[in-house]
């Protein structure tokens, strides 16, 4: 990766982070649909980023989000799990002919169907871990399930909008 590419990625990360903790934090639809858009920074890293760098990036990003949400460690635990699975999941979903180098697995590059099957399971894993830990010690199973499904749908739609508006084909942000 060239250094200018890394610079765009870092700027993108900071943008995702600030957008999440300053604006999206206060946005909860119908009391159940949270918008954890910052996951998509991890999901949209270029495909050749391997597991170890992904893990470290997700740890730092999760920690930052946790500090603002006052949910110490919960976002981190959920996001690190996503970072661990991401590379393997990409290998499972590899299209015929393989990935191009330096490809961003966004909806513009890969198409809607592929993107849906790539991102939705990862979102669900993240949300399940987050809301499960978050509601530990209470008997709120049903409301957690509502929150998981509501938030997953909301954040998926939100990410499509963001990608269509702010991303370019082939190269990021």
């Amino acid at each position, binding site marked *: 990766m060239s250094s200018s590419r890394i610079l765009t990625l870092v700027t993108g990360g900071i943008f995702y982070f600030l957008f999440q903790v300053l604006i999206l934090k206060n946005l909860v639809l119908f009391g159940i649909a949270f918008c954890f858009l910052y996951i998509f920074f991890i999901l949209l890293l270029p495909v050749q980023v391997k597991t170890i760098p992904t893990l470290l990036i997700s740890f730092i990003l999760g920690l930052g989000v946790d500090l603002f949400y006052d949910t110490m460690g919960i976002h*981190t635990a959920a996001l690190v799990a996503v970072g*661990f699975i991401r590379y393997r999941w990409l290998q499972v979903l590899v299209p015929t002919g393989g990935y191009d180098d330096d490809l961003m697995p966004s909806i513009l590059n890969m198409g809607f169907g592929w993107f849906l099957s790539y991102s939705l399971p990862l979102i669900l894993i993240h949300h399940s871990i987050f809301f499960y830990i978050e509601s530990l010690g209470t008997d709120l199973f049903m409301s957690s399930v509502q929150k998981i499904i509501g938030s997953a749908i909301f954040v998926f739609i939100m990410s499509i909008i963001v990608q269509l508006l702010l991303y370019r084909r082939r190269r990021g942000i």
Partner: protein
Amino acid sequence: MQRILLFLYKIRAFLLFVLLEVIAIWMITSHNSQQGAAFFNSSNQLIGSMLGAQNDVVEYFSLSSVNKSLVDKNAELLAELEKLRQPADSVFIELDSLLSSTFQFKGAKVINNSLRLTQNHLTINKGSNHGIKQGMGVFNEEGVVGRVKNVSKNYASIISLLHTELLISSKIKSNDVFGSTKWDGNNPKMAKLMYVPRHVVVEKGDKIVTSGYNAVFPEGIPIGTVVEIKPGPETNYLDITIELATDFSKISYVYLVENFQQQELDSLYQSTGLKYE
């Protein structure tokens, strides 16, 4: 030996994953104890200042409702003052000031708030420099808000009443029966009043206020009104649902209360083996 090392190298990603998860879980457990490490939360200096800057922009949108509630509170206090003002012809006996001023009040601005999680917190823009201490009670003009959890120099984080592990000692205003208010994690407008025995007669619309037993809050700060009474799943207690007096979605300014005799009370409770929540 070489094989073991080679194997470990092969699964290095997995090992790192386990390590990071363990760190995360350690943070979750240590934070959930009532007094977490002061650095890792929103009362941290840097995070507090960022939240403060954000709040400087957002607060303008709620100014009119804030003004209205402050005016209402002022009117209420003026009426109370009028009641207390001594008539010109009566004999006035001054109480010893040591007895009268057990509580001290402070004001602060809320810069961060959540209400949709099961464990919600607030952040305020005052800290140890302004005399805020751990464990102080927090309320606003409508009713109880929570308790101070962590304090940094200029910011403090507060466990909201909307936190499934916070119990507030409370009583029914009409008949002085006491219980504990606890949020059940569902609806940010409702909470439960627990440990009220079955023989007690509770009516819909009864006011619930702080009891003053645990010395965090002075007696009589509103908590909510009873909306539903059911025989509880446990045989001894009623299942009472109350509507909270505080609208948590609109909190912008809060008052903090400190009890000067808290330490004395705590050590007394400890030496007698009593524990109050």
